[in-house]
């Protein structure tokens, strides 16, 4: 996925970029509205993350320009405000959703996914490994012609493993990525999700291997 992040706080922008990079997304960063307008015109983005208070104006004016230019790239607003009426006015201006700072990265990802899923008109990029086709936005898995709907955590686990094929993930790392830090889960919970994915992938060329004492790895034959 290719994101455009419009945020004037460099520290936060760096933090978001590096966190998104961990999930295998590409992020371009603009610190001003004028830069953001140029970026949005030049590049093809899947999604725009927009801060509301920027040095050269209000993020809302970017939204207006953005929508006036018939650009239908979805926009998620990052706002420090929490007043409902303010949020509603941003949705009226054409934002697709908003997250309140400070945000949970998993929530941001979930909202991005939901927004992208709602935009059904555009063809969603799918990942193909062997005879398995995976649509991370729609949450579908296509194994030998039959479509399986994945639960959110199954989906995120599979996305992680697929984006870094051949790489080994420890149980702890997977817990960190799939659960919020205050979810009361043990590392054994991962085994449940791995078990489910294995069931979904049964009979395909893709397998999730257990490396004793190390973790899990996604392999495919051929």
């Amino acid at each position: 996925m290719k994101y455009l992040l419009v945020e004037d706080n460099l520290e936060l922008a760096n933090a978001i970029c590096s966190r998104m990079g961990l999930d295998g997304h590409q992020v371009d960063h603009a610190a001003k509205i004028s830069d953001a307008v140029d970026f949005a015109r030049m590049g093809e983005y899947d999604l725009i993350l927009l801060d509301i208070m920027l040095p050269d104006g209000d993020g809302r004016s970017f939204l207006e320009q953005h929508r006036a230019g018939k650009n239908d790239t979805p926009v998620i607003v990052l706002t420090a405000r929490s007043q409902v009426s303010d949020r509603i006015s941003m949705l009226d201006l054409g934002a697709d959703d908003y997250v309140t700072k400070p945000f949970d990265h998993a929530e941001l990802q979930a909202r991005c996914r939901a927004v992208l899923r709602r935009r059904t008109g555009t063809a969603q990029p799918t990942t193909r490994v062997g005879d398995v086709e995976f649509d991370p936005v729609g949450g579908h898995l296509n194994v030998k012609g039959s479509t399986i709907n994945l639960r959110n955590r199954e989906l995120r686990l599979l996305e992680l493993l697929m984006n870094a094929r051949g790489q080994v993930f420890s149980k702890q790392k997977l817990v960190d990525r799939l659960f919020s830090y205050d979810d009361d889960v043990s590392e054994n919970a991962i085994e449940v999700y791995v078990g489910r994915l294995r069931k979904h992938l049964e009979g395909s060329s893709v397998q999730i291997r257990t490396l004793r004492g190390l973790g899990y790895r996604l392999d495919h034959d051929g």
Partner: protein
Amino acid sequence: MTDEVVVFGSLRNRLAMILTGGAALLAILLFVVVRGYAAQIAQEGQDNILSASVSSILDSAVLRDGAVQLDFPYASLSMLSTPADDRVFYAIYEDSTLLSGYDGLETPPLVPNGERMFTSAQYDNATVRVATASRTLIGADRPRRVSVSVAQTQDALAETLNRISRNVAGFGVGFFALATALAFWGTSTTIGQLSRLTTSVTRRGPQDLSPFLKPVPSEMVPLVGSLNTLMARLEQSLKQSEEFIAEAAHRVRTPLATVRSYAEATLQRVQKQENRDALRSMMRAIDESSRAAGQLLDHAMVTFRAENLEREDIDLDGLLRELVQRMSPVAEMRDVALHLESAGPAIIHGDAVLLQNAFRNLIDNALKYAPIETTITIRIQTTPRISVDVIDQGRGFVPDEMDKLAGRFVRGGDTGDHIGSGLGLTIAQDVAHAHDGTMILSNRSEGGACVTLLF
């Protein structure tokens, strides 16, 4: 919010008092003047006849053989007959000797020749009008002075005056009544302008601070001008404080977001358990503070708006559908499903922002306590009353605590590690109360908590 205004008199009453008082005074004045004038004219009429009578008697006086002779015509007295049968008296003197007539009729001692003198006097137990004139007859030996007085009672005159008085009094009362009616009408229309201004200012929503632009009478222009200036200043200061709060929130929350994002990214990399625990505590502290700040703001807003509800017809079905869609990404993260159970539109007259806030807090709460891979049901019912249940499949409330949980900053004893400020249920309850509704907490027999807002 309405402080007691000290009432000092009433403009309407004061105006009406002045106007009716003035009308009464004018009516009395009218009565007095008209009656006085009528009396004067009537008196002049009587005086003229009396004078003619006196003249005709005096003209008949001749000096014959050294003696004064009067042979006055009958008409001299009959001309004085009136419908009221007024009595007529006369007295003729030669110098100071009564020649003929009624003795004791009071006459002025000296009236210059050719002049008439009119006096009012008492005679025979009645008020009479007396006209007197005299004439000097030149005799051979000496001049003789003949004085003639004719008097008439005033019954006819009094009757005429009474009739006029009655008419004038009736006219005066009518004038007063008309003036009073006009005064009240005038006062009402004048005060009506003020009332209309008041109504149109009162009818505005609490957010409407736009200037008053309808045409007003010129006398009210300064008042409306000051009102508009006040509203402009109020809007300006509200805007400033709103901007300040937004700016302050931005300044505080952006660095918090930075810290949180770094902490999250770092947590993915570090292996050592104590470092991981430290990072977790850090993120928890950040979440706690931002959540508390958010709910405090929400609570402040609910408290403020609850006193100034912006009511409109709201379809709870549509409102909750939107809210569920908005919250489902967060629910999905935990593999919790949000299920809306509704039989169609459920219209209530209420404040959309408040209602949305209340339900968001309830669903937020349910999401926090719902176990993974369960369903949260939001059920809208329209009979017998409109109600919304938010039902989870979690542990439910601790029975002993249920009646205390809606209090401010009260958190259940079984909240464990969940982050919360203890304001969510307070907000929901305040919103329910602001809409004349109630909030009911219950545990489901099949397990799980249920919060009901009943409108």
